[in-house]
């Protein structure tokens, strides 16, 4: 599984430089032969053939697929190939001290992209476990914490890794943004720990106030009588205005029942597009989630501690699937999540079908992130991000034998 072409690196770089241009022709062609293929976008193919060139998937099919002459054949008999896994909610690659900009409670204009360290061991760990693409969020200590980004887990520079910037604005419900804050009882009021909010109510108020301010800002900007010369541009308000116009996805972190309900209520109140992240108590709010057609990024199935005093239920994901709520499985929550495939394995343990579980860590995740035109399935034209497994990926005795990003093996 170590076969690789040194010239592919150049091909990848070239392909990325050309953005969405069709594959650079003359490059080496790799053929993965004999594996059970899970394209996710279609039914599994036994003894399949997967053709990769120029960092992209060229063709996917059965044993009858014509193999181009001179192609490099990689024998994968007895193995299983899935798309590279997509983790739709993480904080990987960012130093813990850099996750939360605590200058203010509401920091919509900051970008996690500025804090991502491409050399972080998190990425090595992620790609060794089969994760090739991940949404990276700012932390949850701010009410509005800023923009996340979708990146590949391999690449020398951030530019090379980046799939999509501004892929969601983090909004956090519950007690996290107020934890550590204290009301002023004597002491020095300018200290950072005396900042607001100090309660769950305060958190929601900060969010609501931010969006009201953005509405006022928009109104002021569009006021025909206003002098554009005197109108100061406020980057934060610009971002929130874009959210109000549904140009930016608001990712609301909410674990407890009341926080999930608040997340849905706020989105309805201000008309922004949202999804619910973590969603530990989604099982209590399943009707509302289904009615609101709000996607859920559930993390993490193996965890029995959802925080916030929440009650964990094994059947949450099965219930989401049964009600048709769009969802993905993420490793995102606190504690020590397992590698993403094992988190999905726990969902299978709790009754989710393997096909749905695989989709929840590949194509569904990519769709929710809006990057399914690049990743999440084995289809012609998609990036050649794939994992060769020793066996059924949901068998805990299986392991990834080789992981490819844009056709290049990146696992150690």
């Amino acid at each position: 599984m170590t076969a690789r072409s040194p010239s592919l690196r150049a091909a990848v770089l070239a392909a990325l430089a050309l953005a969405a241009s069709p594959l650079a022709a003359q490059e080496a062609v790799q053929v993965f032969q004999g594996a059970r293929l899970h394209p996710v976008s279609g039914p599994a193919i036994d003894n399949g053939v997967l053709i990769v060139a120029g960092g992209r998937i060229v063709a996917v099919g059965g044993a009858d697929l014509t193999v181009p002459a001179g192609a490099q054949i990689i024998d994968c008999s007895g193995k299983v190939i899935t798309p590279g896994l997509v983790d739709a909610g993480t904080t990987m690659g960012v130093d813990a001290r850099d996750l939360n900009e605590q200058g203010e409670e509401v920091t919509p204009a900051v970008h996690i992209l500025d804090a991502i360290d491409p050399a972080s061991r998190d990425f090595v760990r992620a790609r060794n476990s089969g994760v090739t693409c991940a949404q990276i969020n700012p932390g949850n200590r701010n009410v509005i914490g800023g923009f996340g980004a979708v990146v590949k887990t391999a690449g020398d520079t951030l530019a090379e890794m980046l799939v999509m910037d501004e892929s969601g604005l983090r909004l956090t419900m519950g007690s996290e943004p107020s934890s550590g804050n204290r009301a002023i009882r004597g002491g020095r009021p300018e200290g950072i720990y005396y900042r607001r909010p100090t309660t769950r109510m305060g958190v929601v108020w900060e969010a609501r106030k931010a969006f009201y301010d953005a509405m006022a800002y928009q109104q002021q900007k569009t006021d025909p009588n206003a002098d554009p010369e005197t109108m100061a541009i406020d980057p934060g308000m610009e971002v929130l205005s874009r959210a109000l116009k549904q140009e930016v996805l608001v990712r609301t972190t909410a674990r407890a029942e009341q926080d999930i309900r608040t997340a849905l209520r706020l989105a309805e109140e201000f008309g922004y597009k949202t999804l619910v992240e973590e969603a530990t108590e989604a099982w209590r709010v399943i009707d509302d989630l289904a009615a609101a057609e709000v996607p859920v990024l559930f993390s993490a199935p193996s965890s029995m501690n959802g925080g916030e005093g929440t009650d964990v239920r094994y059947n949450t994901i099965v219930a989401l699937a049964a009600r048709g709520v769009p969802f993905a499985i993420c490793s995102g929550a606190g504690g020590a999540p397992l590698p993403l495939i094992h988190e999905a394995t726990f969902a299978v343990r709790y009754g989710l079908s393997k096909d749905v579980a695989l989709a929840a860590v590949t194509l569904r995740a990519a769709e929710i992130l809006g990057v399914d035109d690049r990743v999440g399935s084995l289809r012609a034209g998609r990036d050649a991000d794939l994992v060769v497994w020793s066996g059924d990926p949901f068998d805990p005795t299986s392991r990834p034998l080789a992981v490819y990003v844009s056709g290049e093996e990146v696992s150690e």
Partner: protein
Amino acid sequence: MTPARRSSAASPPHSRTFPMTLSRLLKATGLAALLAVPSAAQDQLVVKAGTLHTFAGDPIQNAVILIENGRITAIGSADEIEAPWNAKVVDATNMVVLPTWVLAHTPGGLSGGNENMANVPFLTVQDAIDPSDTFFDEAIRNGVGTLHVIPGNSTLLGGRGMVVRPYGKTVEDMTVRDAGGLKLSLQADRGNSRMAQIRALRNALKDAQDAKAELERQRTEWQKEKDAGATEKKEFDGEIDELKKPVVDLIDGALTGYLFVPSAAEVPEVARLKEQYPAMKLVLVLGPSCYKAADRLKELGYPIVLEDESIEYVERDPETGDETTVCPPKVFADAGIEFAISLSQSGNSARRYPWWQMATMVRHGVDRGVALRSLTTVPARILGVDAEFGTLEVGKVASLQVLEGDPLAATTWTRWVVLEGEVAYDKTADKRLQVLFGETAPASGEGTTGGSDRQEGSR
């Protein structure tokens, strides 16, 4: 606990005699009558197994196990054995039957397993086991049938363990062997340096040796006096201080020590201890990095139990920052060293599951048989209960589990657990599992973990 109760009519394979404070209290207050609800005596039980792993021979398809008074009286294929018409039947014809798991070392189920005083070999977990701890529910739900519950790793000489089954309302009900091993730890805690910890252990052992020598001196003196007719005492009545007795027994080899070795750096000290106290019997409980001393550990020859975190862990190179995932069981298996494994007692770790721990090893290339033995025959032998547990054979105690599928598959759940001939766990009667699966609404006030964890999980 599961609703089924131990039958008071069935004769327990192990009897015990020491007085139990709790049971006395219950009897005195009349609570015992309320708790001890006797079920119909189940003298005979038949288990029909689709696949039977006895761990004493090849797997048997379509097998029957005959159980009488808590012991196995016959095992064979369905066409060889005739089941008594009136016996209760566990029909597992589509399932997998194997012995219950044996844990050679766990600090689970204790209320306070780490005494603050460093040198307390005279304590016993008998006074710390909390039968209502959900750890035991979780254990039986995961097919664990025999556990050596012993103090944690934070105390130098932490006290004695006991072997229990995860079933019963009182410690008395749960007891398999009231005399377990003595816990020792080389973990430098409470601000101690490693030097001080090692020194403290040597001192404690030396103390016991001195106490023993002093007793011998007194005996010789008495003998002299007796021979000279200078004493009335016909028998020597000196004895070792009760507080030191367990350590004296330890160095004499009359009591097995379970020594926690946090890292490879402490292994040379184990070698020194062996040299100095050759009669001492030890079981080594190993932290993750101990695999680096595998050769040395093989020479020493002590039985080995791997801590739950020692199955797979990430090692970071302090200079290059490179991370390597290591599977210590693979290293031990390759070196031909036998080992038992542990489960996490944390309710929030995948390591609490036997299937996870075993599958993790197999993922790293350990043989399935080695993985399965690390929770059955090896720990049973370490605990000295292998004549009764760890395999399914005629004459042995009928403690077995019925699994819905392969023991290493994530999708497999425990359907039944039979402990000493009695159905002690039935998945369909596991109320807590039903709540966790959202099949029944939680009772009012049930389930919330309260406010204490509100701050956890922040990023």
